[in-house]
């Protein structure tokens, strides 16, 4: 097996139940791996099957997920229950960068938070091939159950359609703070997802991803469809083709979509988020792209490689003037509250809670990580 830090598991009916294992960490974790495999088989009621496992240094949660996926598929049973971990998501947190990590590529999971993205997306949709969807669901579920990424909003991108609802039901209880919902075209899509989250009694936030002419057209209605929605994100990979435009250097063909999405999001008082940027080697290009998106009104961009995060944060940082104004508002408001004054004005302008929150947001954006 060429892939590192992963484990390949096959289940077969065998006259002799049990398992065979090859592992690159035999010398230092061989015994512990065997204990883990034995205990997982026991948890499945020691079914009369044979597991063949080739491990290339997968972390324990990855081995667990690979075994679960293989056993459940073979035995036709659902993924085993995991204890739920509830988190209260923060509507007002920064969303300058959301880093996409392919959901079937476990090598990247453990360190993904170290690059400082505001949000970390374990992706079950476009970056996962159709034959790996099930394995990725099991893996991403275990990843959320096991890993912490301090400072990062915990996000999944589910698949579209009924598969997405299954993704959500399996994974959302593992402390997911936000769900990126792909290819949303109608408010009804959001309503069914929100209903599922209601039934799971989760406060998870939603970020609809608008990627089609119809989705862009319905942007405002979608943004207003649920109080769980905190942002609208735009995805333009196939959009130009669908409106029968040609992709150009200037990007003029996407001007309407950008403008419509920013306007709809602002009107609905949610955050507009720009598309991912494909070039990962040219950090100046990332900076220019993020600066341009900021100029159009977007609060953040999507990143497909950790190298893009720093440049994007620098591009999205507010100017010195903006920072100074925000500092005055925050200080003025907090002083007024401390003194028990009700009405607060800074530089002749009334400051209410939303204005204060926005100013805090600007200050936070000024801290380049």
């Amino acid at each position, binding site marked *: 097996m060429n892939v*590192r830090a992963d484990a390949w598991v096959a289940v077969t009916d065998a006259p002799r139940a049990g398992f065979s294992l090859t592992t*690159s*960490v035999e*010398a230092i974790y061989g015994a512990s791996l065997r204990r883990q495999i034995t205990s997982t088989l026991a948890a499945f009621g020691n079914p009369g099957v044979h597991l063949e496992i080739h491990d290339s*240094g997968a972390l*324990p949660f990855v081995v667990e997920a690979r075994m679960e996926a293989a056993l459940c598929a073979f035995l036709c049973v659902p993924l085993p229950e995991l204890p739920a971990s509830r988190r209260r998501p923060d509507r007002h947190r920064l969303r300058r960068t959301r880093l996409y990590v392919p959901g079937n590529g476990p090598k990247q999971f453990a*360190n993904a938070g170290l690059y400082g993205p505001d949000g970390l997306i374990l992706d079950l949709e476009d970056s996962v091939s159709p034959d790996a969807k099930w394995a990725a669901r099991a893996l991403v579920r275990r990843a959320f159950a096991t890993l912490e990424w301090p400072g990062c909003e915990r996000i999944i991108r589910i698949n579209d359609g009924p598969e997405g609802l299954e993704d959500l039901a399996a994974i959302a209880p593992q402390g997911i703070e936000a769900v990126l919902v792909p290819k949303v075209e109608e408010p009804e899509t959001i309503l069914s997802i929100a209903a599922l989250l209601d039934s799971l009694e989760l406060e998870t936030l939603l970020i609809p991803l608008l990627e089609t002419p119809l989705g862009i057209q319905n942007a405002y209605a979608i943004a207003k469809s649920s109080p769980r929605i905190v942002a609208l994100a735009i995805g333009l990979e196939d959009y130009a083709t669908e409106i029968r435009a040609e992709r150009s250097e200037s990007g003029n063909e996407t001007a309407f979509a950008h403008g419509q999405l920013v306007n709809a999001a602002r009107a609905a008082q949610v955050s507009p988020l720009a598309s991912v940027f494909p070039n990962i080697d040219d950090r100046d290009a990332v900076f220019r792209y993020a600066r341009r998106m900021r100029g159009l009104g977007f609060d953040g961009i999507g990143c497909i*490689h950790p190298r893009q995060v720093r440049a994007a944060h620098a591009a999205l940082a507010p100017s010195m003037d903006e920072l100074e104004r925000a500092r005055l508002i925050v200080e003025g408001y907090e002083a007024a509250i401390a003194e028990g004054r009700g009405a607060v004005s800074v530089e002749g302008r009334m400051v209410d809670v939303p204005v204060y929150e926005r100013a805090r947001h600007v200050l936070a954006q000024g801290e380049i990580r």
Partner: protein
Amino acid sequence: MINAVGREVPHHPFAGVGAKLVSGRQASPPIRSCEDYPGDGNKRVPDLMTALKNAGLRDGMVISTHHHLRNGDYLAAKLFAAADALGVRDLVWFPSAVFPCHAELIPYLERGVIHHIEGSLNGPVGDFASEGGMKGIAVLRSHGGRYRAMQDGDVRVDIAVIAAPTADPFGNMRGTTGPSACGGLGFAVADAQYADHVIAVTDNLVRFPCAPWQIQGNYIDQVVVVDRIGDPSKILSGTTELTRSPERLLVAEHAARFVAASGVLREGWSFQAGAGGISLAFTLFVRDLMRERGVRARFVRGGSTRYLVEMLETGLTDFILDGQTFDLDGIRSMRENANHIMTSPFNSYNYHGKGNLASLLDCAVLGATEVDLEFNANVVTHSDGRMLHGIGGWQDALFSRCTILAVPTFRNRVPIVRERLTTFCGPGTLVDVIATERGIAINPRRTDLLAAVAGSDLPLKSLEELKAEAEALCGGPPESLELSGPVIGHVTWVDGTLLDVVRQVTA
């Protein structure tokens, strides 16, 4: 006997850095007379077999080659094929390094043409030795340690065979031109000086004089011309593209931020970083920091690559002191730029000399396979005890004034910070900083560095914290590895004492 770092070694126990007292005189090669060499200066002989016969090749001799041609080396294979044809057995091969291409020498080890290898072992040959395939015990030395061993007389090389990308019939040679150009020939300098007999093998014979020369023909006994000494596509390293691995980039960035925040990076500084992924990324990060701050280096050392050349050509450094040349830009620069200087392990690394370049360096960025909580490190074996890397210049460069080991906290579920090293290769008293993707640990001994970065925004952590974080992900502390097989290798310190042994592993 147990040495000063608690490892059992058979003889010459390591007593501590600087603890060994030296006396006596250096080794001396035999006296030769020009009367015995062709008066017209033409030392050519028809082929390698003739040259080996003339040199008196016989059973048990020590034969050396060099790794300028890296993974494209054809010479070692030609050499041992000739020795085999001559019916010679039990040779000791004393290369400056072994590469994966040398897997084709394994049959000679199996059949006893080569008794054992004294040199850095890795790749298939390392596996072969680790599994107990070699008749004798491998002796691992650093580049500087190899020079010192010849100089001090620990190793007497009977016949040195030097691959010369360009040579003249008198034996003057250089590596910067010819179809197998590789850059500098510094690793062969010791052998030219100290071996009893020296053969130059070239695929690019030029008329006398081969000028400028890197090694003078006055050291050379015979010259052999062959079709090809190496494969140019493998002589040049494929590793000089910047890594896209986010972990490696983050490790390198932390190392670079450390040198910037601590003031190690300042006007007139010097550093050494190799051509591996993390080192190369470090070089690019400090290059950018130097540009931003308008700071220049006096010299940089390396494995030189196009990135160091660009720094030289854009005035970010006054000199490249080149230990090894990895790509075409490096070769061109060495050929054309008077400030791109070939060095040898004598001036770079020799511990028994009157100073060396490594200890003048302000900073060296190195790798490691394992580090313990005392900052001691392993670079030769994997955590399963297999020989994985040569020591190279690693031990020698530990003497820089700020030595940074830039490593991830774990690789494919192998934690790097360990309770006990699988093999002890370098004392922690010489290691100042461990830079990882999860944070930077400064050796508590370096109170000056700790003070220099106090109040900075660097992610400082203790080695204990880094160990705990990696183990939390990897599933607890690694199981202890009890290797009880026979000793198959000795790990030598730069002064010639033994730091540790390497034991056989099961296949």
